[in-house]
């Protein structure tokens, strides 16, 4: 069995932003949802953390993309898509009334979530080797980048409009700031060639499995925290 090493903080700013999301959602007073909705919400908030990590590990112009960063960026993006799919699937499976919103009664936050999910799917699919073989012009790095940025922006709108957990303006401001930071930095990197996230000195060239494991473990731990803390609060109140 390979010896596990301590995870390296690939991007301290990314770790800080994930910590800010945890604080925004879990800081008291805590509003808890009904059991299965807690799982759906937990998956959604963990998807936000995956978004942040994917943005922070994305390639930028003029900075060489190492296989290490590429592997982590791809893992974060795929994890975000899986968590978004879980978020939607749990809601639809448990609460059939949710489907009533797919129509003329669709509220803005649902529309924002749907557009964001579609943009994320487009961002992931357009970089898959099969898509790049079939549609080489459509499956471009530019389309992937802007679809990813759109996904982040619409995810922010969805969370800020849909979350009933946020009590008071502090959580809204913190969550909005996290998303604004990553989206603005990404747009700035692409359009103005500013603020690239450069590889750090001593960063490995290739990604070991342990690094990917730690990234996914961090996201898994975030999911558990997002579900467990409000559930515990609900249980204590009952």
């Amino acid at each position, binding site marked *: 069995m390979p010896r596990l090493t301590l995870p390296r903080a690939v991007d301290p700013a990314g770790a800080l932003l994930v910590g800010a999301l945890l604080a925004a959602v879990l800081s008291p*007073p805590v*509003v*808890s949802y*009904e059991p299965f909705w807690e799982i759906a919400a937990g998956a959604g908030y963990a998807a936000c953390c995956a978004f942040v990590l994917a943005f922070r590990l994305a390639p930028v112009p003029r900075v060489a993309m190492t296989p290490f960063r590429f592997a982590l960026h791809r893992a974060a993006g795929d994890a975000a898509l899986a968590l978004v799919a879980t978020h939607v699937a749990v809601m639809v499976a448990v609460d059939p009334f949710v489907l009533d919103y797919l129509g*003329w009664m669709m509220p803005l936050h649902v529309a924002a979530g749907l557009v964001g999910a579609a943009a994320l799917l487009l961002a992931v699919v357009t970089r898959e080797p099969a898509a790049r073989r079939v549609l080489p012009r459509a499956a471009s790095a530019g389309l992937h980048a802007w679809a990813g940025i759109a996904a982040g922006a619409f995810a922010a709108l969805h969370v800020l409009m849909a979350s*009933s957990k946020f009590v008071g303006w502090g959580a809204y401001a913190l969550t909005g700031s996290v998303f604004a930071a990553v989206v603005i930095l990404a747009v700035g990197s692409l359009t103005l060639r500013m603020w690239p996230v450069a590889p750090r000195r001593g960063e490995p060239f290739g990604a070991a499995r342990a690094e990917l494991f730690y990234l996914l473990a961090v996201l898994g731990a975030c999911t558990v925290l997002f579900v467990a803390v409000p559930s515990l609060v609900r249980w204590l109140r009952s």
Partner: protein
Amino acid sequence: MAAAVLVAVAVGYGSSLRLERIADRPLLPTRFDHKFHKGVNCVTCHHNFVDRGLGPGGCYTCHKAWGTTELRRIDTVFHAFCTDCHRRLQAAGEKAGPVKSCAACHVERAARPEG
């Protein structure tokens, strides 16, 4: 320029069509038990008896007829009417009703309890 005009027309038409659909749509029934709300003042919810002298009548019908802004917001307003109070109580550490789950409050139209 032409594309912008087309988009504006499409959005306007879609918006008016949405209002028609909302106006035609019946209220999704809820299971509501007054025994869980004994501590709440009656006019907190039945505000029509004190606000503008609206008198008795269905809440949904009145809000639908009130104007296009109210009609457009009807889903948000009715949900917030209940869930905002539940959320405030939870934040204060008290037991409260549902906050998120649709099925916790709503029932199918055919299964609506009598009375």
